[in-house]
């Protein structure tokens, strides 16, 4: 029988042990595509948080009503609905941000973090635990996007949240805001994450 984790551990696992980006390598499409600036990374992280938390709440609430044969189809419909709401909300209240994120908000529907958590967690756990799990995973995802966005924006444009932080001597590394820069940054951060993990295991 699976041991039940404490609420704190349930939340914290998303930040490091099961971090969706650095440990599970899930949600790579938005991670690479929208982290050219901090603000787009943060907006994507918050939109994903909204969808993940609400989908987990709904799926964990109705899990006993859904026949296993149609569970994935049902989860996708629920997820797609929340994604559409997030997309409409951004278009209505944060129009420039919605334009900057382009097709990546609708693409949250196929983000493996969301469907993965419904299948692996929300469909097998209580509403409360599913909420904490979704909150932890979302926070881990936001932190990962913020790390990538910060590095890429500072090195690629010399700014942080649009404010200049590098002196006039600094010549932006254009490659950092191009797709290649996303792969370089992600690869470097993954390498660091693996090194930290190995060091921790040796102790």
């Amino acid at each position, binding site marked *: 029988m699976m041991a039940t984790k404490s609420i704190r551990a349930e939340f914290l696992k998303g930040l490091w042990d099961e971090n969706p980006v650095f440990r599970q390598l899930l949600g790579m499409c938005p991670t690479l595509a929208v982290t*050219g600036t901090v603000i787009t990374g943060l907006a994507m992280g918050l939109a994903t948080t909204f969808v993940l938390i609400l989908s987990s709440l709904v799926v964990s609430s109705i899990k006993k009503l859904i026949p296993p*044969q*149609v569970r994935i189809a049902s989860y996708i*419909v629920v997820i*797609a609905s929340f994604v559409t709401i997030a997309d409409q*909300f951004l278009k*209505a209240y944060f*129009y420039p941000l919605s334009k900057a994120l*382009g097709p990546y908000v609708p693409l949250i529907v196929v983000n493996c973090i969301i469907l993965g958590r419904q299948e692996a967690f929300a469909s097998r756990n209580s509403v409360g635990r599913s909420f904490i799990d979704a909150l932890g995973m979302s926070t881990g995802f936001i932190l990962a996007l913020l790390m990538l966005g910060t590095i890429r924006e500072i090195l690629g444009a010399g700014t942080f949240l649009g404010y200049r932080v590098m002196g006039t001597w600094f010549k932006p590394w254009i490659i950092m805001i191009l797709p290649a820069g996303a792969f370089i940054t992600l690869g470097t951060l993954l390498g660091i994450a693996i090194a930290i993990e190995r060091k921790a295991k040796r102790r």
Partner: protein
Amino acid sequence: MSLSSRMILVLTAVGLITGGFLAGVAKLTKERITLNIQAEIERAIKAVVDEAEVSKVLYRGEGLVIYREMDAKGQIAGFAVQATGIGFQDKITLMFGLNETLTKITGLTIIEQKETPGLGAKIMDWETFLQFWKNRDATGELSLRKPPVRTPDELLSTEINTITAATISSKKVLALVNLSLQKVRELIKDKMITIEGDDGH
């Protein structure tokens, strides 16, 4: 209840509930989204036609919208042309202004683009690109000036500056403007729009 009936029932219920919910959300946000798009177009028009106060759509076709702009006194301030075409990576939507006789381009602004950040995306920059679109000759074809110059005074009235390391994006914008100008001339020739009259199609 059989498994098949239960599956149909659950999927139908999920579809109906989420569909109804989404219809409500769409109703709540529709007006605001329309206003956002409208405001963006108005901002673009004001950026390219000085003294534009009242807009009227003269023509709306595939990838091309022509607006007639009136000033506060009710006189024609100029025309704004919104055009959409393919850029280096994805669609580019731009707006350029024409004077009241359609002989000069009064300015250009980019509404939407997904060109390469740091390179082609400089089509959005005033210093690098947009300032060179003021007072261009709109009676014939415009061409690109290469190598690029530093100030608009160094260009002929039929020339547009090239963005260093983003020649393709510069060319795509230029081609879109040339094509739109040609279409405007054809529409006038075919009497599909009239520049001084009250109504267009």
